[in-house]
């Protein structure tokens, strides 16, 4: 009720206030007749002022950060409060009355939600749940403790005569004040602790407490407020019970609202594939709706939006596109930072308004001492209890930081402003005290906490890059612990976490995630992916243009031989994505073993040329196309990669290649062989290959498969030109060289003779030099591992774009040229420079396999029907290739 009523109070920031400066005066004297120029300040006043305030705050931020020294010593929040004081002083001096202040309505409805959403959404959930017990204890017990002890002690102070008698307040008033002053403030805590970098556990406990205690604060405040309004005489015993009950209603209700909206949000983003552009908006809208709904039902809105952010993140992140993810992240951060800035500045400004507050030294000093003392005492007591149950006890230093980090902030201020002066006669004193407390905690404690943390040698958070090993072993440990808990028969934390994960995997994720999105959320995969991108980038940074043929080695695969036959078969069955450079190699394969090796080789080097993002030119406002610069960067990147790759290949095969065929030929060639592609559908596997022109292309993503109407133009950016090469089984037997296949710009590989096939297989030759690898540091990469990193990077890059399972094959072919007509707005694809991606079907290798296997493939083939709408089918085969080869071009119709 309380906060619902706030909406009535919610006036746009300072909107109601008169503009104190001269601007309104220039409103213009009415001109006769047609006005050439009209000054309409009043029409834009409110939004204009809001924008101006934000602008001023932002500019101030810039100024603060001009000096690194200042910001490293003084937290930004302090600077902003001080700035607010100065600005408020100026306004006061100019207008002779305080104009602006932090309106509770504005604060709760507009300024607080972005901050809470930001913190909930980016909350490290694992850490949060690992410490949930402690967080809840501090949030619930701690806040109750602080409120009651502070309130009671202040009342005692008054009874002792240390508070001036003009402060007319009874025990209930003091409890009310205690309830609003006791809560640790998320905004203040975040602002200070983000700069302090204490260790994660400490941070999550203090910060989690500040978020979750909102429910307690709201309930206490509401209950005390209504008790005060009822008058202490009229309070019945049932009212106390109701007060306790409302604690549960408000907190659990708030959390439930948040989770419901999180569910809705996750579910909605599952279906946004065609309207990527509104994905970020959905996130904000639904989270805000959660906040408002909870507010409306007078539940804990902070809790609601925290749970919403916390709950939806995993699914939303998996569902929305990469760009949307970035957008969400930055928008959220921007909004939160903006809101935070404005809050602190307005806090400073509000303090200037002396008409609102009345000073009483006894009350102020008493409050300051009590909140510090009882906070510390509460922390010590609770920690003592908690440590009986904690695996890693919180030591004394942690307790000091937790006590000292109990900052009060704008929530307390907004709540105290909301008090009804008629019911709470001491309101003005409370306001003054709150302002002092807030200023003291934010400025004094904020200033000193950093030196304190340093001095106490609090464990700092250490940022180390995650490694695959760590990630994998961490998962192992989790499973081990869950298993051990099972064996011991203790259903503890690990047991329930494991349970939850299974439930999530089985039901929730199925329901809330796109099918293509599962993999992204796998953490091991995620780490792998990020490592690869990093490696790829540093690879290029290090001058991918330097062709050091000596330095390149294939990744060593020592245990290749122990590779189970079955897994190879599995591999072949997978219609994963990959790219293959040397189409010829497979021809030479004779024995089944060799063939598998060769296929394996192709699969493994598969990632090499899978471009990650494709784009299409579009004038639509609903789709953002990359600008030229970005494109160019990518081109450079890929060119480098390619050159690297070529040199690698030549080294590998000890063959000097000459690019014998001029490129124009390839187009001609493609046009020749139209036929057999359709006839020879083994299980097609798309191996994207990228042309020199480095247009970014991709294979179809799995998502395409989900919907059959693939011809529609509004696809997400997953389309690409796909170029499928197929061979009939005879090809394998004949072992003919289809030399003309170097449609790809990479040097043609002279097909190794069957006898030396083994030698040519890269891993065989690579056996000798087992190199050393992937550096775990971003900045440096050992040359030897470049190839590795490169391979892996590209495969991971591409596979994101094209999920591995159920790769949609493209059975149809489009000629490269006619497309000019189709896509007049695709400047990236000059007709003379076609950019097909080459795909390589594993069917090549599979052709010779047993019938049982191929029959097993049949169902898969059905799955792999063409998904994209193909306007025309033209099959082209490379010129010198025998007719069994055919290369399919598949241009995404949407290109």
């Amino acid at each position, binding site marked *: 009720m309380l906060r619902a009523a706030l909406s009535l109070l919610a006036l746009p920031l300072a909107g109601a206030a008169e503009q104190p400066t001269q601007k309104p005066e220039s409103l213009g004297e009415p001109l006769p007749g047609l006005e050439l120029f009209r000054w309409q300040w009043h029409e834009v006043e409110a939004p204009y002022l809001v924008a101006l305030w934000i602008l001023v705050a932002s500019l101030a931020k810039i100024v603060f950060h001009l000096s690194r020294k200042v910001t490293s010593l003084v937290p930004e929040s302090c600077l902003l409060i001080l700035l607010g004081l100065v600005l408020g002083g100026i306004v006061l001096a100019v207008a002779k009355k305080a104009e602006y202040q932090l309106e509770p309505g504005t604060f709760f409805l507009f300024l607080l939600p972005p901050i809470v959403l930001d913190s909930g959404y980016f909350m490290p959930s694992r850490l949060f749940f690992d410490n949930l017990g402690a967080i809840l204890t501090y949030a619930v017990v701690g806040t109750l403790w602080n409120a009651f002890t502070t309130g009671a002690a202040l009342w005692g102070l008054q009874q002792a005569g240390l508070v001036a008698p003009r402060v007319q307040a009874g025990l209930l008033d003091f409890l009310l004040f205690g309830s609003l002053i006791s809560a640790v403030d998320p905004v203040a805590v975040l602002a200070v602790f983000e700069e302090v970098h204490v260790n994660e556990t400490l941070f999550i406990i203090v910060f989690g407490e500040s978020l979750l205690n909102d429910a307690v604060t709201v309930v206490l405040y509401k209950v005390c407020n209504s008790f005060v309004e009822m008058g202490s005489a009229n309070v019945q015993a049932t009212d106390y019970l109701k007060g306790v009950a409302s604690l549960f209603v408000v907190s659990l209700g708030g959390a439930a609202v948040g989770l419901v909206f999180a569910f809705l949000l996750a579910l909605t983003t599952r279906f946004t594939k065609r309207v990527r552009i509104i994905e970020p908006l959905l996130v904000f809208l639904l989270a805000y709706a959660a906040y408002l709904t909870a507010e409306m039902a007078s539940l804990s809105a902070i809790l609601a939006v925290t749970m919403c952010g916390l709950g939806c993140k995993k699914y939303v992140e998996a569902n929305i596109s990469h760009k949307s993810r970035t957008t969400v992240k930055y928008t959220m951060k921007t909004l939160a930072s903006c809101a935070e800035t404005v809050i602190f500045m307005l806090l400073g400004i509000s303090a200037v308004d002396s008409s609102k507050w009345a000073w009483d030294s006894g009350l102020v000093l008493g409050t300051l001492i009590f909140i510090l003392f009882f906070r510390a005492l509460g922390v010590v007591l609770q920690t003592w209890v908690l440590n009986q149950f904690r695996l890693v006890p919180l030591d004394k230093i942690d307790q000091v930081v937790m006590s000292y980090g109990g900052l009060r902030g704008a929530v307390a201020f907004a709540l105290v402003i909301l008090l009804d002066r008629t019911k709470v006669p001491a309101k003005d004193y409370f306001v003054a005290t709150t302002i002092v407390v807030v200023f003291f905690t934010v400025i004094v404690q904020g200033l000193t906490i950093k030196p304190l943390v340093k001095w106490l040698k609090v464990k700092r958070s250490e940022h180390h890059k995650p490694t*695959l090993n760590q990630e994998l072993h961490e998962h192992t440990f989790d499973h081990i612990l869950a298993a051990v808990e099972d064996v011991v028969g203790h259903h503890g934390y690990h047991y329930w976490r494991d349970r939850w994960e299974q439930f999530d995997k089985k039901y929730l994720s199925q329901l809330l995630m796109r099918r293509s999105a599962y993999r992204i959320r796998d953490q091991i995969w995620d780490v792998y992916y990020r490592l690869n991108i990093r490696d790829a980038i540093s690879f290029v940074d290090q001058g991918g243009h330097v062709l050091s043929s000596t330095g390149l080695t294939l990744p060593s695969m020592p245990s290749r031989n122990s590779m189970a036959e079955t897994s190879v078969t599995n591999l072949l069955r997978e219609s994963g994505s990959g790219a293959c450079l040397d189409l010829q190699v497979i021809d030479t394969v004779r024995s089944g073993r060799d063939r598998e090796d060769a296929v394996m080789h192709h699969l493994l080097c598969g990632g090499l040329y899978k471009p990650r993002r494709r784009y299409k030119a579009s004038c639509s406002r609903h789709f953002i196309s990359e600008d030229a610069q970005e494109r160019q960067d990518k081109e450079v990147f890929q060119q480098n990669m390619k050159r690297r790759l070529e040199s690698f290949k030549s080294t590998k095969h000890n063959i000097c290649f000459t690019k014998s065929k001029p490129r124009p030929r390839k187009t001609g060639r493609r046009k020749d062989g139209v036929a057999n592609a359709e006839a020879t559908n083994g299980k097609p596997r798309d191996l994207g290959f990228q042309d020199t022109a480095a247009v970014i292309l991709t294979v179809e993503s799995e998502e395409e498969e989900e919907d059959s109407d693939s011809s529609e133009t509004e696809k997400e950016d997953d389309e690409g030109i796909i170029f499928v090469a197929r061979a009939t089984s005879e090809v394998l037997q004949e072992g003919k060289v289809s030399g003309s296949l170097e449609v790809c710009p990479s040097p043609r590989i002279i097909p190794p003779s069957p006898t030396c096939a083994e030698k040519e297989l890269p891993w065989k030759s690579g056996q000798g030099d087992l190199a050393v690898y992937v550096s775990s540091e971003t900045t440096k990469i050992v040359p030897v591992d470049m190839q590795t990193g490169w391979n892996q990077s590209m495969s991971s890059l591409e596979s994101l774009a094209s999920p591995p399972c159920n790769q949609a094959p493209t059975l149809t072919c489009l000629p490269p040229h006619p497309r000019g007509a189709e896509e007049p707005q695709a400047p990236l694809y000059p007709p003379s420079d076609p950019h097909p991606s080459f795909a390589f079907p594993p069917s090549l290798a599979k052709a010779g396999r047993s019938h049982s296997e191929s029959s097993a493939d049949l169902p898969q083939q059905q799955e792999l029907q063409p998904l994209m709408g193909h306007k025309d089918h033209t099959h082209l085969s490379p010129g010198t290739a025998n007719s069994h080869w055919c290369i399919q071009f598949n241009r995404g119709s949407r290109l």
Partner: protein
Amino acid sequence: MGSRSSHAAVIPDVDSIRRETGFSQASLLRLHHRFRALDRNKKGYLSRMDLQQIGALAVNPLGDRIIESFFPNGSQRVDFPGFVRVLAHFRPVEDEDTDQDPKKPEPLNSRRNKLHYAFQLYDLDRDGKISRHEMLQVLRLMVGVQVTEEQLENIADRTVQEADEDGDGAVSFLEFTKSLEKMDVEQKMSIRILK
């Protein structure tokens, strides 16, 4: 913790077990209780079947391997001391200053032993090295089905290479330990109730 009704005396060799594992009396009682509950036929030892009956273990990707770890050297049964010895790896590391148990040279719950326990879950053939193949098998268990075999292999390669320092294409225990240098293994491989 443990029920007072049962007495430590019911556990044979209780003192030597305590000395070896460092468990408190209460924990041992609790574990003994559990041991007998798992032992369906009151045969005095546990077989693989007994452990496989634990429902949640069946869905644990590493469940089989963990069950296997209770039966070293291919034995078919595990008695109570053996049972407790395995679980002792997960006893939290206690601070030296809290003078509870005097530290023995190499208690079962030392960082090294905890790591070794995890290591031998990977190292199926017990050659002291996690080969690429073994890594791949673990990854296959751990990573969701949505990742293709091909990518799994890439991950396995990468994982091995990342940890592999001497270039033998496999991860030795030393390398395994090193790759986890920065991780708080003592914390991550401990269960609070096993004091």
